[in-house]
């Protein structure tokens, strides 16, 4: 299956930014991406620091076959996505404490299997057709109050988790051996982090799709990491970058008539590449220190 998007570059058709807050559909999409920025920005900071970027990518992609089945059978996509994501997160956490953590190879195989399985289900079993690109890359105009409510819950839990567990996540990530000696329930805190990432990934599915949820978690925190030197700054900048990336990405998606997932992901990756290149060039100048 080849997915082709017609990218119109007619400059006269550039939409006014006001359209983002005038149309009900884009209002919901904007609110959705801002709520996801809170969840993705906060949790993304720990995802990047704890080297869970591949996990966050895998947990989103792993939901794809489940979403295809749910879409074709009329079952709740949210419940199907949550079951797969939470199950995967629980399995990873359990394996990591029995010395059988799934390495990059196993995670890569899972990604291939999830994508291939989902495509086979969509094309040969359920004949999902146009629904596939929505499941993979999200939609800006098909969001509803339910999607908004789930993202709101994810944002609230991310804030609560960061406030209550932020010190435990930081101490456990910084020195995993000594954290339990400090009385930190490191294992339970790690499990909660994975579950919150899984829940937020499911909340992000309608807007950015199964394939690109990582753009919400990894890219903003990776950009913020380039400029910040403390946890508080990292968390705040990560949220700010995620919100700006989501807003601009939505605008681009409306302008270019593409799904919001790719617009947000490409924009974020471009910003990261520019910032990293700029900082790298600056650090090579005589007398300048690397950030």
């Amino acid at each position: 299956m080849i997915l082709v998007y017609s990218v119109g570059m007619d400059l006269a058709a550039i939409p006014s930014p006001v359209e983002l807050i005038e149309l009900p559909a884009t209002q919901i999409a904007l609110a959705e991406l801002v709520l996801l920025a809170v969840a993705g920005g906060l949790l993304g900071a720990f995802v990047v620091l704890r080297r869970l970027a591949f996990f966050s990518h895998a947990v989103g992609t792993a939901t794809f076959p489940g979403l295809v089945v749910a879409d074709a059978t009329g079952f709740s996509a949210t419940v199907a996505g949550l079951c797969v994501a939470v199950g995967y997160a629980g399995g990873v956490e359990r394996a990591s404490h029995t010395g059988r953590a799934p390495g990059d190879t196993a995670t890569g195989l899972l990604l291939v299997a999830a994508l291939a399985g989902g495509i086979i289900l969509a094309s040969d079993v359920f004949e999902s057709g146009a629904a596939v690109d929505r499941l993979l890359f999200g939609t800006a105009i098909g969001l509803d109050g339910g999607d908004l409510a789930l993202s709101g819950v994810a944002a609230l839990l991310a804030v609560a988790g960061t406030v209550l567990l932020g010190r435990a996540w930081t101490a456990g990530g910084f020195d995993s051996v000594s954290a339990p000696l400090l009385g930190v329930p490191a294992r339970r805190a790690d499990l909660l982090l994975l579950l919150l990432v899984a829940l937020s990934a499911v909340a992000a599915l309608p807007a950015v799709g199964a394939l690109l949820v990582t753009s919400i978690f990894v890219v903003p925190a990776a950009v913020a990491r380039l400029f910040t030197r403390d946890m508080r700054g990292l968390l705040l900048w990560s949220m700010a970058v995620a919100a700006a990336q989501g807003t601009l990405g939505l605008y681009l998606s409306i302008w270019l008539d593409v799904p919001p997932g790719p617009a947000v992901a490409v924009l974020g990756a471009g910003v990261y590449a520019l910032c990293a290149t700029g900082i790298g060039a600056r650090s090579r100048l005589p007398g300048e220190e690397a950030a």
Partner: protein
Amino acid sequence: MAPPPAVAAHDLSLGYGAGPALEGVHFEAAAGTTLCVLGPNGGGKTTLFRALIGDLRPLAGEVRVAGRPAYLAQTERTRLDFPVSALDVALMGSLASGRWWLPPRRAERHAALAALERVGLAAQAGTLFGELSGGQRRRAMLARALTQDAAVLLLDEPFAGVDPASAELMTAVFDELRSEGRTLLVSTHDVESARSFDLVLCLNGLQVAFGAPGESLGREVLEATYGSDLVILEEPPERPVRAITVQHHEH
């Protein structure tokens, strides 16, 4: 009735899957005791520490440590790329107060700053941990142990790779901790420094000796502990043998 020991190992056997790496370990250290763990590379010192902190399950026997010990690891297992300052690291010790879900209180902040001052890092409180020198990083980790306020401190090769200035500061802090009545287990290669401890435990794949330095640091015990790595400097009559060790690193 005698109080329970602060640290104890009973008929302990430890390993990593292919047979025991350390066996026959049996000792007790009362509260307020300083115990030196002596042995060559690969002799089982770090293996013993891993069992004491609960990171390695014994193949046989048991270990007991009173309360939650503070631990200074031999090899740096910390993440140098974390955006945490020396003060943040020292503050992590306050998590042991049991309020890990709340932000640090002012008193805990003061305690962390005092700990940094004690290890000579007050001026580097705001410096990123990853930007400190190796010796400074060890001192920051020691500051975390001080903030933790643990009754038992497990210090695995605390002077390994540390510059002389840092080593001097750390020695002064250990002396203070000793005078405060805390229990210290310190592993080292330095035979001569071991004589200043209350007890010495000699390991070389098994427990070679355990007891006061006067009993445990004779020529026979040292030769059994270090083999060909031992160099006898002096063996005066009626006085302890003076010796150094030559360490062969396989990496």
